[in-house]
């Protein structure tokens, strides 16, 4: 992002600061906040029965006649070129239909990058795909096999012979610092933030901490591998994909293959976990290219090792955080400088530098991020990008500062809560972290513990820790839905939105029911296919709010269309859309419930079976006028073995201030899920890149340790449930905040247990011996 962009965003913000809130989307609080029937209640997942039966159909499970199976050959050097390539044995192997390499791959355009500007782009790794003999990272695909069975494809892949000419590659974090880039902006924020004189405040401070924190490369590791079943039919490309960016994937594939948008159809009704990793990567493009050459449908299922080679993860970071405080614990300086890997062909900033801009009131700030270019697969968004690692650094530093001052770390945080955005001065839309802290502390019993006394059970030392989590609100413009109401009084809401476990259809069904004044069982939701109205990505915890805004917009249109259709022979005659509300399966006059007519009655009288309208979420100007952040208070109890350094988490509590909770059942699962991924990030997970040749050496679930059942305690989650008057339904997204703050809470508890401050994740036992 550029200086120009900084100027535009800054200008819009300045203007919006002067505009009355009532003129903006969300300017008037969503009336549904006060009028919830189904929203806010526990609802089981609509797709639950399908999922527990194994009947939910995932991308690799679409049956198709004449299917060919795919195997990939990956480069084993980080930089250079293919010098010799012998595919003869593979081509002659039983069952092989095609061996595709740069020699015979069709011409493919570079995929358009996921961006702020185009919702039709989902590219992550912005490099030519199989167009030349160049090798740009260790793991790049150099050959693709199609065969009649997976077994035959896999075998043929072992027969491809490649010799490389190796060039010197950049694979070392430390060495890349010499050529670090400092972008003008991070996402839509100015990168370098200087406010006040942080250096002077640090020098003069009564208390200060200054330390470097490191987080490794992490991988998403959804249990469903990246997969696609691909078919060309009558010049159209049909892709059954596992994607959290349906329209982005379709639009990108159209660009790559030189097709019109309507010539690409992507379907993805169920995604077996995404966490940021399931957008467009090389494999869908390669499969589609191979299917085109072979003139047969193709299934590609990435081997687990191929997932590490082809799908990027969370960027490695190194963050210096320096904090200064006066004698009473008031923050006077917050310095946050860091490096993270972002190759030139990557689109994800790993925006940890934004974390410290909203959490605490502080007299001075000095924040900047630097990007390192390495010859590796592009890094990408992974649950809580930026904040997940940013909160580790800042919230560890806060704990260090509290220790230095001799203050309770909760009290230190409460003392520094901001009453408005600490940088821009924008008002909060809603923010009550103090309440979250109180709820969490009460649940955990924080104040009952004498934390500084050494407690132990046998060889196990007990420790307690806490930290704040945070994640910004986001809503996407351009999310659209179609609402269809029929003469039986049923409504169907349709959008190319995504289900990866968030409960999208379940929650939006609740929303639509309340919005349209219908009982839950008379609403259907259809998602997961680009034949449905255009949807923005499931990312940035934005989908619920974006769909919420789209359904709201469509419902307004629906009211207008219905009242027009109702004509004059109706109790509603003469009323405008603004005078109407949805209730009891129809429309009625606000303030005069006697003037009412049901959907069925209106439609039947008009001789219509059904009526459809489309609505679209508006520009999210509320995000620019208000400071809209969710926060959490995370508490952790754990024990550390003096003999082995093993860490066992025994309790975990998260209290969240995220606006209104729409479905406590699915929300609790989102929070817990994020927190569990946070425990993995804290204690066990790490992608290992061998710097000698840029090869990932933890390319399996044996070597990359995601937490298992026995690692995980019962996790208590609570929420303030205070509506955000600026957000649709009063709700801010909750998919990502769960992971934030957890690693710091764990690290702080480890310090409490052992006196050891571990500043580089994961906190493996060797660091505690």
């Amino acid at each position, binding site marked *: 992002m550029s200086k120009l962009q900084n100027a535009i965003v800054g200008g819009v913000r300045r203007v919006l600061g002067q505009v009355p809130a009532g003129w903006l989307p969300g300017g008037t609080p969503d009336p549904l906040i006060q009028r919830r029937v189904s929203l806010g209640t526990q609802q089981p997942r609509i797709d*639950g029965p399908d999922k*527990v039966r194994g009947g939910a159909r*995932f991308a690799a499970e679409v049956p198709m006649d004449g299917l060919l199976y795919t195997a990939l050959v990956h480069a084993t050097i980080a930089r250079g070129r293919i010098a010799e390539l012998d595919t003869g044995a593979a081509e002659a192997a039983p069952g092989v239909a095609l061996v595709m390499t740069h020699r015979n791959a069709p011409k493919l355009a570079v995929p358009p990058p996921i961006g702020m500007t185009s919702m039709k782009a989902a590219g992550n790794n912005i490099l030519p795909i199989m167009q030349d003999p160049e090798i740009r990272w260790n793991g790049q695909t150099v050959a693709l096999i199609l065969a009649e069975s997976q*077994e035959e494809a896999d075998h043929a892949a072992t027969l491809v012979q490649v010799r490389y000419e190796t060039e010197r590659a950049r694979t070392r974090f430390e060495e890349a610092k010499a050529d670090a880039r400092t972008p003008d902006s991070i996402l839509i924020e100015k990168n370098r933030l200087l406010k006040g004189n942080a250096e002077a405040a640090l020098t003069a401070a009564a208390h200060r901490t200054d330390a470097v924190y490191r987080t490794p490369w992490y991988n998403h590791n*959804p249990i*469903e*591998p990246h997969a696609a079943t691909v078919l060309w039919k009558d010049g159209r490309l049909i892709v059954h994909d596992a994607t959290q960016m349906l329209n982005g994937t379709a639009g990108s594939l159209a660009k790559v293959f030189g097709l019109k948008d309507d010539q690409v159809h992507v379907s993805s009704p169920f995604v077996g976990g995404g966490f940021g990793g399931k957008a467009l990567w090389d494999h869908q493009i390669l499969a589609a290219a191979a299917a085109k050459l072979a003139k047969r449908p193709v299934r590609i299922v990435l081997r687990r090792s191929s997932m590490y080679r082809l799908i990027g993860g969370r960027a490695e970071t190194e963050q210096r955080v320096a904090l200064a405080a006066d004698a009473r614990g008031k923050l006077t300086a917050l310095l946050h400088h860091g490096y993270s890997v972002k190759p030139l062909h990557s689109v994800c900033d790993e925006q940890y530098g934004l974390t410290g801009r909203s959490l605490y009131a502080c007299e001075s700030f000095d924040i900047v991020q630097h990007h390192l270019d390495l010859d590796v697969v592009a890094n990408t968004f992974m649950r809580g990008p930026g904040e997940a690692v940013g909160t580790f650094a800042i919230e560890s530093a806060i704990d260090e500062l509290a220790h230095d001052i001799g203050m309770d770390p909760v009290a230190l945080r409460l003392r520094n809560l901001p009453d408005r955005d600490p940088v821009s001065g924008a008002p909060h839309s809603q923010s009550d972290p103090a309440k979250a802290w109180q709820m969490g502390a009460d649940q955990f019993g924080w104040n009952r513990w004498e934390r500084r006394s050494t407690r132990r059970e046998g060889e196990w030392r007990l420790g307690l820790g806490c930290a704040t989590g945070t994640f910004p609100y986001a809503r996407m413009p351009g999310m659209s839905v179609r609402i269809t109401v029929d003469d039986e009084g049923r409504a169907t809401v349709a959008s190319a939105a995504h289900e990866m476990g968030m409960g999208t259809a379940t929650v939006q069904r609740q929303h639509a029911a309340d919005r349209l004044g219908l009982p839950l069982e008379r609403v259907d939701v259809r998602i997961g296919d680009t034949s449905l109205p255009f949807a923005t990505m499931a990312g940035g915890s934005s989908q619920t709010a974006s769909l919420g805004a789209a359904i709201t917009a469509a419902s307004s249109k629906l009211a207008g269309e219905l009242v027009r259709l109702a004509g004059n022979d109706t109790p509603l005659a003469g009323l405008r859309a603004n005078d109407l509300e949805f209730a009891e399966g129809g429309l009625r006059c606000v303030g005069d419930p006697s003037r009412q007519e049901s959907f069925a009655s209106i439609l039947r009288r008009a001789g219509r079976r059904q009526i459809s309208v489309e609505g679209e979420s508006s520009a999210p100007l509320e995000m620019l006028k208000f400071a809209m952040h969710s926060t959490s208070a995370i508490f952790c109890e754990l024990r550390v073995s003096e003999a082995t350094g093993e860490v066992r988490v025994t309790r975990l509590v998260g209290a969240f201030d995220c606006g209104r909770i729409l479905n406590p059942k699915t929300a609790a699962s*989102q929070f817990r899920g994020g927190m569990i991924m946070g425990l993995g990030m804290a204690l066990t997970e790490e992608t290992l890149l061998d710097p000698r040749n840029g090869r990932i050496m933890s390319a*399996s679930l*044996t070597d990359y340790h995601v937490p298992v059942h026995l690692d995980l305690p019962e996790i208590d989650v609570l929420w303030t449930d205070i509506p955000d008057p600026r957000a649709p339904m009063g709700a801010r997204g909750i998919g990502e905040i769960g992971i934030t703050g957890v690693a710091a809470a764990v690290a702080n508890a480890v310090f409490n247990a052992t006196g050891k401050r571990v500043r580089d994740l994961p906190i493996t036992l060797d660091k505690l011996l």
Partner: protein
Amino acid sequence: MRITVNGTDYPVPDDVRVSLLDMLRERSGLTGSKLGCNQGACGACTVLLDGERVLSCLTLAVQAAGREVRTIEGVAAAEGELHPLQQAFIDHDGFQCGYCTPGQICSALGMLEEFRRGDPSHVTADLAGGQARFSHEEIRERMSGNLCRCGAHNGIVAAILQFADAGAGE
């Protein structure tokens, strides 16, 4: 020799390299069993082979010849009613994306049978003491071979406990 899956006989694949998992998913239309890692590190492919939970990705289909395989498709009653454990997974939200779920459910069914016959686990204090106490910790250890990346673990354990408790009361 045939392989019996949920009461129906299927031919043994000609290519003996075909795993039981691929035979189910790619050749028999039974896609409920999931491929996660294809190397025994995630548990998504768990099925019951002669009543024992095993990993179908590391079992060659030909090794199942003459045996009974039960997959997630064979867990619910024939008339379609959900198995009480399946219902318990829904009640406790023991899944999000649903991809590891069939493996979790098949694994739990096998686990409860192992428990019933008195098999100890890594966390069982007294190896010679007969049946271990059915606790959260026992379930967690015994289910640790089934990864879940959405983080539905609490719900999974609660679902299994609900089902086991209901069974104990019968």
